[in-house]
């Protein structure tokens, strides 16, 4: 599975910060992720099975890595291909 840089970054960020809302990921990224666009990326990652989401009362969702997401992140780390969210 080939992953775009943004998806790789979100994988590592979710691994670092744990289950989060999209807005929390945007804030934790220090500007690398953008409001609005992140939900298209997260939706695509959910379709790929890399993340799962749980809908909350206010229409927001909490996102977390799936088993496939963890394995994909581990494989990327072995390849040295993940940029620095886990510092």
């Amino acid at each position: 599975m080939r992953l775009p840089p943004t998806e790789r970054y979100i994988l590592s960020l979710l691994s670092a910060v744990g289950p989060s809302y999209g807005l929390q990921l945007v804030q934790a990224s220090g500007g690398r992720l953008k409001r609005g666009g992140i939900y298209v990326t997260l939706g695509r990652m959910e379709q790929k099975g890399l993340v799962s989401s749980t809908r909350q009362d206010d229409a927001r969702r909490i996102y977390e890595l799936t088993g496939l997401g963890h394995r994909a992140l581990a494989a990327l780390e072995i390849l040295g291909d993940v940029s620095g969210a886990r510092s």
Partner: protein
Amino acid sequence: MTPVSAGILYRIVEGFLSVLPVDASGRRVFAETLADWRREMDTAQTGPRRVVVGLQGLGAVARGLLHVSVREGTSREGVATLSRLAAWSVATVMVIIALNWSQSLTVQGTRVAVGPAGVALGSVAWLVALMPVLAYVSAACVRENAPAPPRLGPALLMGAVMVLAMGWGLPAANQAYRELTFAMFRPGEVLPPGLSERTFGELVGLLSSGSSESALSELHHRLYWVIAVPVMLASGMTTRSFVGWRRAAGTVLPLVIFIVPFLAKVDSGYTRLSEWVALLTVVAVIRVFVRATTLERQQGHDAPNHK
């Protein structure tokens, strides 16, 4: 329910997003983006902070809209829709060129052929004029049970194409045609562009001149075309969901409604108004058919013997 603290800008954007023809995943993107906006607005204590949050929310919605549109426009169904429109456009241009191949002008009592270049340049205006109909027909006339296409992305992309076409492409083609034919009468002389040959920027510049009324009318005319083409494209794609007699009626009726103002001898003061009314009526008719189809499906699903 939208909280009171959300603000007028939020409400306007929320209302706008609710009428866009997006699929379920697009709706989810907008719902989450708006939920973030509401949450940040709830925690904004001061007026300046609320302004900042409002602008951030607007930017987030715009970004989400762009990403959703690109995703839809580049999807397999979106590319297929646009490719079909391109094919219909090419075929139409070829027919127009064939019909006008022997077009000629009378120069000092002598018939002079316009030539292939002139015929090709003249076909651009025809293609633009027919584009709303082509968009609708190419989107609606597909085989039964074709996959439901995404509508927002292809429609916005065609809107962007029409901005370029109406703003620069058509004026350039018009002027090139005029210069080509004018050179037959007055070789070596310069032909200044008329209103139809002005770009968007030039027309906006004319708004503060003595030709402001004509420039405004020309801008209005071109704006109509920029909006009509994506609306007709999205409407044509929507008709694919109709079944039975609604498929035939829901495909033909909106097209007839759209064309009527151009065929009827509407008083010149009401021409533009009649075209806008027709376009809005097309959208209303499509929505009525959608609602009827949805109700019918629900009733069929809820029927006692439904398995």
